[in-house]
C-alpha cells in the first residue's frame, strides 16, 4: 500500500505492523499531498522526536539517513478505515520542513506544538509561534539537551524569598 507514494517503507519490526513510510524532507509535502489525494482525509497527529541520546538501533529502512530530529505525522483515511504514519528525518543544523497546513488546516496547532517543544520550523506556517510555553521563552523543552533543572526559579523578586 505505502509503496505507491515513492518513499521508503518502514520495516514491520519497529512499528508493530502499523504502516509507516519515510519520505525525505524534500519529498515531505509531495508525499503528504499524494496521500491526501489518495483518501487520507484527516491529519490525526503530528509530533516530533529528538533522537540525540537514543541508544538502540533506529531500524530505519535502507537509504534513509538518520538525523537528530524526526517529525512523525499520523494520517487517517475514514473511507478505508486505514492509518498511515509518515516519519521524516530533520537535520539538527537546519531543522525545517514545509508545513502541511495547506493540505490539512488541522496541522496548525500540532505544528506550533512541535515548534514550541523541539524548535522545528514549519516553512509557510501561518502562525509560527509558541503555543504552550510563554511567548518570550527561550529554548525548546522536549529536546534531549534541555535540562529541566535549568529553569530559573520564578518570583525570585518577591519580598519574602526563603
Amino acid at each position, binding site marked *: 500500500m505505502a509503496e505507491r507514494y515513492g518513499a521508503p517503507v518502514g520495516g514491520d519490526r519497529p512499528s*508493530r505492523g502499523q504502516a509507516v513510510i519515510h519520505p525525505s524532507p524534500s519529498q515531505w509535502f509531495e508525499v503528504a499531498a499524494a496521500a491526501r489525494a489518495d483518501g487520507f*482525509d484527516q491529519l490525526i*497527529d503530528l509530533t516530533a*522526536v529528538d533522537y540525540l541520546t537514543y541508544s538502540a538501533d533506529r531500524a530505519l529502512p535502507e537509504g534513509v539517513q538518520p538525523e537528530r530530529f524526526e517529525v512523525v505525522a499520523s494520517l487517517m483515511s475514514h473511507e478505508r478505515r486505514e492509518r498511515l504514519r509518515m516519519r521524516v528525518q530533520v537535520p539538527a543544523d537546519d531543522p525545517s520542513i514545509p508545513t502541511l497546513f495547506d493540505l490539512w*488546516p488541522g496541522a496548525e*496547532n*500540532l505544528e506550533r506544538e512541535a515548534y514550541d517543544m523541539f524548535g522545528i520550523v514549519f516553512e509557510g506556517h501561518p502562525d509560527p509561534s509558541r503555543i*504552550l510555553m510563554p511567548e518570550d521563552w527561550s529554548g525548546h523543552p522536549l529536546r534531549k539537551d534541555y535540562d*529541566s533543572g535549568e529553569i530559573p526559579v520564578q518570583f525570585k523578586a518577591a519580598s519574602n524569598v526563603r
Partner: protein
Amino acid sequence: MSITDTAPADGASPEPVAAGMPTGPAAGAERVSRREPSAVLRMSEAEAAEIGGDPDDPDDDELVLLNMGPSHPSTHGVLRLMLELSGETVLRSKPVIGYLHTGMEKTGENLTYLQGGTNVTRMDYASPLFNELAFSLATERLLGIEVPERATWIRMLMCELNRVSSHLLFMATNGMDLGAVSMMIYGWREREEVLRFFEKVTGLRMNHNYIRPGGVAADLPADWRTDVAELIELIEPRLDEYDTLLTGQPIWRERLQGVGIISAAEAVALGATGPLLRGAGMAWDLRRDEPYLFYDQVDFDVIVGIHGDCYDRYAIRLNEIRESLRIVAQIIDAMPSGDYRTQDKKVTPPPRARIDESMEALIHHFKIFTEGFKVPAGEVYAAVESPRGELGVYMVSDGSSVPYRLHVRAPSFVNLQTLPHLMQNGLIADGIAIIGSVDPIMGDVDR
C-alpha cells in the same frame, strides 16, 4: 457530502496543493494575505497588548480586541480567548493556551512504564481511565504481551462508566454555562454516584492509575454486579428527566440550535474527532470503526447528528450516556472469571503472599518497583475513543525501562482549533455555549 472532498476550512483555496509548495518570501507573504479573511486571529499576545495600550477614542467605532479568560467561569479552566469584536459579534478569535502546561510529556520520559500511569491519568482529568488505557495499550503493543480476557472486560466496564461520568460532567457544566443551574446540580449528583463506584474499585475518585500495562491494578469487588446494576437503574430514568428538563425546552433549544455550526468536511479538515465530528453528521467512532478491547462483541449504536450545531453535540453526549449504559449492561453478563492481570512475570510483580516465602520473589518485586521492566525498542501508536475524541499515545522505546519519548495526541488540544471557526459571526453569549459544546478539558489541552 463526500468526506473526501475536504476543502481547507478557512477559505484557503486548494490550488497550491496541486501546484506544489510556493517558495521564497514573496510567496510566503502572498499565502499569509490569502488567509487573512480567516476565522483565526493570528496575532501574538505582545501585539495584542500593544493595541490594548492605545487610548480609547469615544468617536471610534472600529473593531475591539477583547480578552476573555484565562480565569473566566465559562472557559472551563484556564482557557483564554482573544476576541476581535464588532459590537457584540465575534469576527476572529484565537484561543491562547498553555496556562496549565506542566511538561507532562517530559515528565513521562523520566517515569518507568509502571509509574507512567500516574502521570498520564492526570492529563484528561474528567476521563482519566482513557488516558491510562491508551498508555497501557501502547506499552503492551511494544511488549507484545496479551492481556487476560477478564482484564479486558474490566477495562471496558470502567471506561464506559468513565464515559458516563465524563458526559454527566459535560451535562452539568453545559447547563451551568447556559443558565440551567438545576442541571448543574443534577449532573454533579449523578456523576458522584459513578465516582463512588470508582472509589470502591480503584481507591480513588479520579486519577486512578487503575489500568496498567498488563491488566488492571485490582480485581473488581465481589458485589460489583449489584453496584453496577444499581447505577444503571439510577441513571437511566434520570436521563429521561434531563430530557424533560432540557431537550424539549424552548429556551434551551433557542440557545443551542443553529449555534456554532460546523460541517463534516470542516471538522475532518481541522482534525476534529469525537462528538464534534459525529455532531456534523459523520458516523465515526473508533469503538466501531477500529475496534479495540472487545467492542466488536458488544452491541451499541454510534450516535450521529445532522446540523453540526451545539444542540446536536448536546444530544449526542446525552444519548452516548444511554449507549454506554447499554454496553455496561452487556458487560455484566459477559464478564468471564479469570486473571485481572497478565501472569507474564516480566511485567507483573509476584503476589504478596509469595514475597514472604521466597527471596527471589522479594528481589523480583523490588526490581520491578525500583527499576521497572524493560520494553523492547521500537515505536508505536495506540488510539482509543475517549469521550472527547481520539486519544492517542505515540511512544518510542529505546529498550530501557522508561519511554524514550511519550507523546499524547490529546483530543481537546486538536478540537480546540475549531473554536474560532465555530464562533465566527456569532455573539459572545453564543461563544459561551460553543466553548461548552466543544467540551475541552484544559489538562488535556496543555499537558
